[in-house]
Protein backbone atom coordinates (compact mmCIF):
# COMPACT_ATOMS: atom_id res chain seq x y z
CA UNK A 1 0.00 0.00 0.00
CA UNK A 2 1.52 3.27 -1.06
CA UNK A 3 1.39 6.72 0.50
CA UNK A 4 -0.97 8.23 -2.04
CA UNK A 5 -3.42 5.34 -1.70
CA UNK A 6 -3.69 5.82 2.06
CA UNK A 7 -4.38 9.52 1.70
CA UNK A 8 -6.76 9.22 -1.23
CA UNK A 9 -8.87 6.76 0.76
CA UNK A 10 -8.69 9.09 3.78
CA UNK A 11 -9.89 11.96 1.61
CA UNK A 12 -13.20 10.19 0.89
CA UNK A 13 -13.71 9.56 4.62
CA UNK A 14 -12.99 13.22 5.43
CA UNK A 15 -15.39 14.43 2.76
CA UNK A 16 -18.19 12.25 4.14
CA UNK A 17 -17.46 13.37 7.73
CA UNK A 18 -17.71 16.98 6.60
CA UNK A 19 -20.90 16.27 4.68
CA UNK A 20 -22.44 14.64 7.74
CA UNK A 21 -21.42 17.69 9.78
CA UNK A 22 -23.07 20.05 7.32
CA UNK A 23 -26.35 18.14 7.62
CA UNK A 24 -26.31 17.21 11.29
CA UNK A 25 -25.05 20.35 12.99
CA UNK A 26 -27.18 23.43 13.34
CA UNK A 27 -24.75 25.98 14.66
CA UNK A 28 -23.48 28.39 11.99
CA UNK A 29 -19.81 28.08 12.89
CA UNK A 30 -20.04 24.30 12.99
CA UNK A 31 -21.56 24.28 9.53
CA UNK A 32 -18.77 26.52 8.25
CA UNK A 33 -16.15 24.27 9.81
CA UNK A 34 -17.86 21.21 8.35
CA UNK A 35 -17.73 22.66 4.83
CA UNK A 36 -14.04 23.37 5.39
CA UNK A 37 -13.49 19.75 6.41
CA UNK A 38 -15.25 18.71 3.19
CA UNK A 39 -12.90 21.02 1.34
CA UNK A 40 -9.94 19.46 3.10
CA UNK A 41 -11.09 16.07 1.83
CA UNK A 42 -11.29 17.33 -1.75
CA UNK A 43 -7.84 18.94 -1.54
CA UNK A 44 -6.36 15.77 -0.07
CA UNK A 45 -7.88 13.78 -2.94
CA UNK A 46 -6.36 16.10 -5.57
CA UNK A 47 -2.91 16.20 -3.99
CA UNK A 48 -2.76 12.47 -3.39
CA UNK A 49 -3.63 11.75 -7.03
CA UNK A 50 -0.85 14.07 -8.13
CA UNK A 51 1.60 11.77 -6.36
CA UNK A 52 0.54 8.72 -8.37
CA UNK A 53 2.62 9.20 -11.47
CA UNK A 54 5.34 11.43 -10.11
CA UNK A 55 8.56 11.55 -12.09
CA UNK A 56 11.22 14.00 -10.90
CA UNK A 57 8.45 15.94 -9.17
CA UNK A 58 4.77 15.35 -8.51
CA UNK A 59 2.20 16.75 -10.92
CA UNK A 60 2.28 20.48 -10.12
CA UNK A 61 -1.13 21.35 -11.61
CA UNK A 62 -3.20 19.82 -8.77
CA UNK A 63 -0.82 21.43 -6.26
CA UNK A 64 -1.41 24.86 -7.76
CA UNK A 65 -5.16 24.17 -7.91
CA UNK A 66 -5.17 23.23 -4.25
CA UNK A 67 -3.26 26.37 -3.20
CA UNK A 68 -5.81 28.41 -5.14
CA UNK A 69 -8.58 26.36 -3.60
CA UNK A 70 -7.34 26.89 -0.05
CA UNK A 71 -7.29 30.64 -0.52
CA UNK A 72 -10.76 30.65 -2.07
CA UNK A 73 -12.11 28.38 0.69
CA UNK A 74 -10.70 30.66 3.36
CA UNK A 75 -12.14 33.74 1.63
CA UNK A 76 -15.59 32.21 1.48
CA UNK A 77 -15.31 30.96 5.07
CA UNK A 78 -14.38 34.49 6.17
CA UNK A 79 -17.43 35.84 4.36
CA UNK A 80 -19.63 33.15 5.89
CA UNK A 81 -18.27 33.96 9.36
CA UNK A 82 -19.02 37.64 8.92
CA UNK A 83 -22.56 36.77 7.79
CA UNK A 84 -23.00 34.49 10.80
CA UNK A 85 -21.82 37.22 13.15
CA UNK A 86 -24.14 39.71 11.53
CA UNK A 87 -27.12 37.36 11.89
CA UNK A 88 -26.21 36.79 15.53
CA UNK A 89 -25.95 40.51 16.17
CA UNK A 90 -29.22 41.35 14.45
CA UNK A 91 -31.43 38.46 15.52
CA UNK A 92 -29.59 36.71 18.37
CA UNK A 93 -29.85 33.37 16.56
CA UNK A 94 -26.88 31.02 16.46
CA UNK A 95 -28.33 28.20 14.41
CA UNK A 96 -30.92 27.42 11.82
CA UNK A 97 -34.09 26.23 13.45
CA UNK A 98 -37.65 25.81 12.30
CA UNK A 99 -39.32 25.99 15.67
CA UNK A 100 -39.06 29.73 16.15
Amino acid at each position, binding site marked *: *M*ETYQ*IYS*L*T*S*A*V*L*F*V*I*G*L*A*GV*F*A*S*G*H*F*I*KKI*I*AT*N*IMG*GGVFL*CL*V*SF*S*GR*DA*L*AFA*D*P*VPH*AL*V*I*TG*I*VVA*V*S*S*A*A*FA*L*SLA*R*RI*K*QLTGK*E*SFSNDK
Partner: protein
Amino acid sequence: MSVLIDIILAILAVYLAIQCLLAPRLPQTMFLFFAFGLALALAWVRLGAVDVAIAEAAIAAGFLGVLMIDALRDFSHALNKRQGNPTDNQKTLSGNGTKLPWLPGVALGLGLGLFLLIALEAIWKMPDGGGLTVLAGEMLPVSGVGNPVTAVLLNYRGYDTWLEIGVILMALLAIVATGGTEVYRRPGMAARDPLLRQVILFFTPILFLFGAFLLYAGKAAPGGAFQAAVLWGAMGILLHLGGWPVFAVIPRWLRQLILALGLGAFLLMGFLFMAGGGALFEYPPAHAGVLILIVETLAAISIAAALTAIYTLFNQMNEEPDQADSTN
Protein backbone atom coordinates in the same frame (compact mmCIF):
# COMPACT_ATOMS: atom_id res chain seq x y z
CA MET B 1 7.80 2.12 8.43
CA SER B 2 6.89 5.17 6.36
CA VAL B 3 3.52 3.59 5.61
CA LEU B 4 2.95 3.37 9.36
CA ILE B 5 3.49 7.13 9.72
CA ASP B 6 1.02 7.76 6.92
CA ILE B 7 -1.59 5.47 8.46
CA ILE B 8 -1.21 7.15 11.87
CA LEU B 9 -1.46 10.58 10.27
CA ALA B 10 -4.54 9.57 8.29
CA ILE B 11 -6.21 8.18 11.42
CA LEU B 12 -5.29 11.36 13.30
CA ALA B 13 -6.85 13.57 10.63
CA VAL B 14 -10.08 11.54 10.60
CA TYR B 15 -10.19 11.45 14.41
CA LEU B 16 -9.68 15.21 14.69
CA ALA B 17 -12.37 15.85 12.08
CA ILE B 18 -14.88 13.67 13.95
CA GLN B 19 -13.98 15.13 17.33
CA CYS B 20 -14.21 18.61 15.88
CA LEU B 21 -17.82 18.05 14.85
CA LEU B 22 -18.76 16.28 18.10
CA ALA B 23 -17.14 18.69 20.55
CA PRO B 24 -19.71 20.11 22.94
CA ARG B 25 -18.19 23.56 23.24
CA LEU B 26 -17.45 26.07 20.49
CA PRO B 27 -13.81 26.83 21.48
CA GLN B 28 -13.08 23.09 21.44
CA THR B 29 -14.55 22.81 17.96
CA MET B 30 -12.36 25.64 16.74
CA PHE B 31 -9.13 24.43 18.24
CA LEU B 32 -9.73 20.90 17.02
CA PHE B 33 -10.27 22.44 13.59
CA PHE B 34 -6.87 24.17 13.73
CA ALA B 35 -5.33 20.87 14.83
CA PHE B 36 -7.06 19.21 11.88
CA GLY B 37 -5.60 21.82 9.53
CA LEU B 38 -2.10 21.22 10.88
CA ALA B 39 -2.53 17.44 10.56
CA LEU B 40 -3.52 18.02 6.92
CA ALA B 41 -0.41 20.19 6.48
CA LEU B 42 1.71 17.27 7.73
CA ALA B 43 -0.11 14.97 5.31
CA TRP B 44 0.82 17.31 2.48
CA VAL B 45 4.45 17.28 3.48
CA ARG B 46 4.24 13.48 3.36
CA LEU B 47 2.77 13.71 -0.13
CA GLY B 48 5.60 15.96 -1.26
CA ALA B 49 3.43 19.06 -1.64
CA VAL B 50 5.41 21.47 0.53
CA ASP B 51 3.91 24.57 -1.16
CA VAL B 52 0.44 23.35 -0.25
CA ALA B 53 1.55 22.55 3.29
CA ILE B 54 2.82 26.10 3.86
CA ALA B 55 -0.37 27.55 2.40
CA GLU B 56 -2.56 25.28 4.51
CA ALA B 57 -0.73 25.94 7.76
CA ALA B 58 -0.57 29.68 7.16
CA ILE B 59 -3.94 30.46 5.58
CA ALA B 60 -6.36 27.69 6.47
CA ALA B 61 -5.14 27.00 10.01
CA GLY B 62 -3.55 30.36 10.84
CA PHE B 63 -5.55 33.11 9.24
CA LEU B 64 -8.95 31.40 9.41
CA GLY B 65 -8.11 30.48 13.00
CA VAL B 66 -7.57 34.13 13.90
CA LEU B 67 -10.89 35.06 12.31
CA MET B 68 -12.68 32.26 14.16
CA ILE B 69 -11.22 33.17 17.54
CA ASP B 70 -12.36 36.70 16.87
CA ALA B 71 -15.85 35.40 16.05
CA LEU B 72 -15.89 33.57 19.40
CA ARG B 73 -16.58 36.87 21.11
CA ASP B 74 -20.00 37.04 19.47
CA PHE B 75 -21.21 33.52 20.07
CA SER B 76 -22.00 31.81 23.34
CA HIS B 77 -19.43 29.13 24.04
CA ALA B 78 -21.60 26.17 25.00
CA LEU B 79 -23.20 24.88 21.83
CA ASN B 80 -26.21 23.37 23.58
CA LYS B 81 -26.89 26.23 25.95
CA ARG B 82 -30.29 26.80 24.41
CA GLN B 83 -31.38 23.32 25.38
CA GLY B 84 -30.60 23.96 29.01
CA ASN B 85 -28.48 21.37 30.75
CA PRO B 86 -25.00 21.20 29.15
CA THR B 87 -24.03 18.02 31.01
CA ASP B 88 -26.75 16.03 29.28
CA ASN B 89 -24.78 13.45 27.33
CA GLN B 90 -27.63 12.42 25.09
CA LYS B 91 -27.78 15.88 23.61
CA THR B 92 -24.07 16.50 23.15
CA LEU B 93 -23.80 13.26 21.18
CA SER B 94 -25.60 14.61 18.16
CA GLY B 95 -23.18 17.48 17.88
CA ASN B 96 -24.90 20.64 18.95
CA GLY B 97 -27.97 19.76 20.91
CA THR B 98 -30.47 19.77 18.07
CA LYS B 99 -30.92 16.04 18.03
CA LEU B 100 -31.96 14.61 14.69
CA PRO B 101 -35.16 12.59 14.63
CA TRP B 102 -34.27 8.94 14.15
CA LEU B 103 -35.77 8.41 10.69
CA PRO B 104 -33.93 11.28 8.95
CA GLY B 105 -30.88 10.34 11.02
CA VAL B 106 -30.90 6.76 9.73
CA ALA B 107 -31.59 7.92 6.19
CA LEU B 108 -28.72 10.39 6.37
CA GLY B 109 -26.39 7.73 7.81
CA LEU B 110 -27.31 5.24 5.07
CA GLY B 111 -26.96 7.85 2.34
CA LEU B 112 -23.57 8.97 3.61
CA GLY B 113 -22.40 5.38 3.99
CA LEU B 114 -23.41 4.58 0.42
CA PHE B 115 -21.74 7.76 -0.80
CA LEU B 116 -18.56 6.81 1.07
CA LEU B 117 -18.49 3.35 -0.51
CA ILE B 118 -19.01 4.78 -4.01
CA ALA B 119 -16.29 7.39 -3.45
CA LEU B 120 -13.86 4.79 -2.11
CA GLU B 121 -14.52 2.50 -5.05
CA ALA B 122 -14.09 5.34 -7.53
CA ILE B 123 -10.80 6.36 -5.92
CA TRP B 124 -9.55 2.80 -5.77
CA LYS B 125 -10.31 2.16 -9.43
CA MET B 126 -8.92 5.47 -10.65
CA PRO B 127 -6.76 4.63 -13.66
CA ASP B 128 -3.08 5.52 -13.63
CA GLY B 129 -1.44 7.74 -16.19
CA GLY B 130 -2.59 11.00 -17.62
CA GLY B 131 -1.63 14.05 -15.66
CA LEU B 132 0.43 16.96 -16.85
CA THR B 133 3.70 16.18 -15.08
CA VAL B 134 5.65 15.58 -18.26
CA LEU B 135 4.31 18.66 -20.01
CA ALA B 136 4.91 20.86 -16.98
CA GLY B 137 8.47 19.56 -16.75
CA GLU B 138 9.19 20.12 -20.44
CA MET B 139 8.06 23.73 -20.36
CA LEU B 140 9.86 24.55 -17.10
CA PRO B 141 13.01 26.02 -18.75
CA VAL B 142 10.98 28.69 -20.62
CA SER B 143 8.69 29.49 -17.70
CA GLY B 144 11.25 31.70 -15.99
CA VAL B 145 11.09 29.94 -12.62
CA GLY B 146 12.50 26.71 -11.25
CA ASN B 147 9.66 25.60 -9.00
CA PRO B 148 7.02 23.76 -11.06
CA VAL B 149 4.19 24.82 -8.72
CA THR B 150 5.11 28.50 -9.07
CA ALA B 151 5.36 27.98 -12.83
CA VAL B 152 1.80 26.64 -12.92
CA LEU B 153 0.46 29.36 -10.60
CA LEU B 154 2.05 32.39 -12.20
CA ASN B 155 2.79 31.31 -15.74
CA TYR B 156 0.84 28.37 -17.17
CA ARG B 157 -2.34 29.14 -15.28
CA GLY B 158 -1.86 32.82 -14.55
CA TYR B 159 -5.51 33.39 -15.34
CA ASP B 160 -6.61 31.31 -12.32
CA THR B 161 -4.24 33.10 -9.99
CA TRP B 162 -5.38 36.48 -11.26
CA LEU B 163 -9.01 35.59 -10.59
CA GLU B 164 -8.04 34.23 -7.19
CA ILE B 165 -6.72 37.64 -6.17
CA GLY B 166 -10.08 38.93 -7.37
CA VAL B 167 -11.87 36.41 -5.14
CA ILE B 168 -10.03 37.73 -2.08
CA LEU B 169 -11.02 41.28 -3.00
CA MET B 170 -14.61 40.13 -3.51
CA ALA B 171 -14.57 38.54 -0.06
CA LEU B 172 -13.32 41.79 1.42
CA LEU B 173 -16.04 43.77 -0.35
CA ALA B 174 -18.69 41.31 0.78
CA ILE B 175 -17.48 41.54 4.37
CA VAL B 176 -17.54 45.32 4.15
CA ALA B 177 -21.11 45.02 2.88
CA THR B 178 -22.23 42.75 5.74
CA GLY B 179 -20.43 44.86 8.31
CA GLY B 180 -22.25 47.87 6.93
CA THR B 181 -19.22 50.14 7.07
CA GLU B 182 -15.90 50.65 5.39
CA VAL B 183 -14.35 52.55 8.26
CA TYR B 184 -11.18 51.27 9.84
CA ARG B 185 -11.03 52.35 13.43
CA ARG B 186 -8.25 52.35 15.94
CA PRO B 187 -8.46 49.42 18.36
CA GLY B 188 -9.63 50.05 21.88
CA MET B 189 -7.79 49.83 25.16
CA ALA B 190 -6.64 46.25 24.59
CA ALA B 191 -3.57 47.54 22.73
CA ARG B 192 -1.93 49.32 25.63
CA ASP B 193 0.06 46.35 26.92
CA PRO B 194 3.74 47.47 26.75
CA LEU B 195 5.09 43.91 26.65
CA LEU B 196 2.83 43.02 23.73
CA ARG B 197 3.92 46.14 21.87
CA GLN B 198 7.60 45.37 22.37
CA VAL B 199 7.21 41.78 21.23
CA ILE B 200 5.31 42.92 18.15
CA LEU B 201 7.96 45.54 17.35
CA PHE B 202 10.57 42.82 17.63
CA PHE B 203 8.76 40.39 15.37
CA THR B 204 7.59 42.78 12.66
CA PRO B 205 10.93 43.05 10.78
CA ILE B 206 11.46 39.30 11.12
CA LEU B 207 8.05 38.59 9.63
CA PHE B 208 8.74 41.05 6.84
CA LEU B 209 12.08 39.45 6.02
CA PHE B 210 10.72 35.94 6.20
CA GLY B 211 7.85 36.89 3.91
CA ALA B 212 10.25 38.45 1.43
CA PHE B 213 12.40 35.33 1.58
CA LEU B 214 9.40 33.07 0.88
CA LEU B 215 8.42 35.31 -2.01
CA TYR B 216 11.86 35.19 -3.60
CA ALA B 217 12.48 31.53 -2.77
CA GLY B 218 9.21 30.67 -4.52
CA LYS B 219 11.05 30.93 -7.83
CA ALA B 220 13.09 27.82 -7.19
CA ALA B 221 11.76 26.18 -4.02
CA PRO B 222 8.47 25.86 -2.14
CA GLY B 223 7.10 29.29 -1.31
CA GLY B 224 5.58 32.06 -3.36
CA ALA B 225 3.21 34.98 -3.39
CA PHE B 226 0.40 33.53 -1.26
CA GLN B 227 2.63 32.21 1.48
CA ALA B 228 4.53 35.51 1.62
CA ALA B 229 1.26 37.44 1.61
CA VAL B 230 0.02 35.60 4.68
CA LEU B 231 3.18 36.46 6.60
CA TRP B 232 2.88 40.10 5.61
CA GLY B 233 -0.80 39.99 6.48
CA ALA B 234 0.15 38.55 9.88
CA MET B 235 2.46 41.52 10.26
CA GLY B 236 -0.41 43.90 9.58
CA ILE B 237 -2.68 42.06 12.01
CA LEU B 238 -0.05 42.10 14.77
CA LEU B 239 0.59 45.79 14.25
CA HIS B 240 -3.14 46.40 14.46
CA LEU B 241 -3.36 44.43 17.70
CA GLY B 242 -0.39 46.30 19.13
CA GLY B 243 -2.05 49.67 18.63
CA TRP B 244 -0.58 50.69 15.27
CA PRO B 245 -3.67 50.36 13.07
CA VAL B 246 -1.99 50.51 9.67
CA PHE B 247 -5.31 50.48 7.92
CA ALA B 248 -6.85 53.24 9.98
CA VAL B 249 -4.04 55.75 9.53
CA ILE B 250 -3.27 55.57 5.82
CA PRO B 251 -5.57 57.65 3.62
CA ARG B 252 -8.48 56.04 1.85
CA TRP B 253 -7.13 56.45 -1.68
CA LEU B 254 -3.82 54.82 -0.72
CA ARG B 255 -5.63 51.95 0.96
CA GLN B 256 -7.72 51.33 -2.14
CA LEU B 257 -4.69 51.64 -4.38
CA ILE B 258 -2.80 49.02 -2.39
CA LEU B 259 -5.79 46.68 -2.42
CA ALA B 260 -6.25 46.99 -6.18
CA LEU B 261 -2.54 46.93 -7.02
CA GLY B 262 -2.13 43.16 -7.39
CA LEU B 263 -5.23 42.61 -9.50
CA GLY B 264 -4.56 45.71 -11.60
CA ALA B 265 -0.89 45.10 -12.26
CA PHE B 266 -1.54 41.47 -13.14
CA LEU B 267 -4.25 42.45 -15.63
CA LEU B 268 -2.23 45.31 -17.09
CA MET B 269 0.72 43.03 -17.67
CA GLY B 270 -1.56 40.44 -19.24
CA PHE B 271 -2.90 43.01 -21.71
CA LEU B 272 0.59 44.31 -22.46
CA PHE B 273 1.61 40.80 -23.51
CA MET B 274 -1.46 40.67 -25.72
CA ALA B 275 -0.40 43.97 -27.30
CA GLY B 276 3.01 42.41 -27.88
CA GLY B 277 1.44 39.61 -29.90
CA GLY B 278 1.11 36.90 -27.27
CA ALA B 279 -1.91 35.52 -25.46
CA LEU B 280 -3.33 36.92 -22.23
CA PHE B 281 -0.82 36.26 -19.43
CA GLU B 282 1.72 34.77 -21.85
CA TYR B 283 5.09 35.97 -20.60
CA PRO B 284 7.91 36.48 -23.10
CA PRO B 285 10.32 33.68 -22.12
CA ALA B 286 13.38 35.95 -22.06
CA HIS B 287 12.03 38.15 -19.26
CA ALA B 288 9.59 35.72 -17.65
CA GLY B 289 11.55 35.38 -14.41
CA VAL B 290 11.72 39.10 -13.65
CA LEU B 291 8.14 39.75 -14.73
CA ILE B 292 6.84 36.92 -12.56
CA LEU B 293 8.74 38.29 -9.57
CA ILE B 294 7.23 41.76 -10.09
CA VAL B 295 3.70 40.38 -10.45
CA GLU B 296 4.19 38.14 -7.42
CA THR B 297 5.45 41.01 -5.27
CA LEU B 298 2.55 43.28 -6.16
CA ALA B 299 0.06 40.45 -5.70
CA ALA B 300 1.56 39.60 -2.31
CA ILE B 301 1.28 43.22 -1.16
CA SER B 302 -2.35 43.34 -2.26
CA ILE B 303 -3.28 40.03 -0.66
CA ALA B 304 -1.53 40.98 2.58
CA ALA B 305 -3.43 44.26 2.63
CA ALA B 306 -6.72 42.46 1.95
CA LEU B 307 -6.09 39.95 4.75
CA THR B 308 -5.24 42.76 7.17
CA ALA B 309 -8.38 44.63 6.11
CA ILE B 310 -10.56 41.54 6.58
CA TYR B 311 -9.14 41.02 10.05
CA THR B 312 -9.54 44.69 10.97
CA LEU B 313 -13.18 44.63 9.90
CA PHE B 314 -13.73 41.43 11.88
CA ASN B 315 -12.04 42.88 14.92
CA GLN B 316 -14.30 45.89 15.04
CA MET B 317 -17.46 44.05 14.07
CA ASN B 318 -18.64 43.50 17.61
CA GLU B 319 -18.03 47.04 18.72
CA GLU B 320 -20.98 49.35 18.54
CA PRO B 321 -20.94 51.13 15.15
CA ASP B 322 -21.73 54.54 16.64
CA GLN B 323 -19.30 54.23 19.52
CA ALA B 324 -16.12 55.42 17.85
CA ASP B 325 -16.00 58.05 15.17
CA SER B 326 -14.50 57.61 11.75
CA THR B 327 -10.89 58.33 10.98
CA ASN B 328 -11.66 59.30 7.44
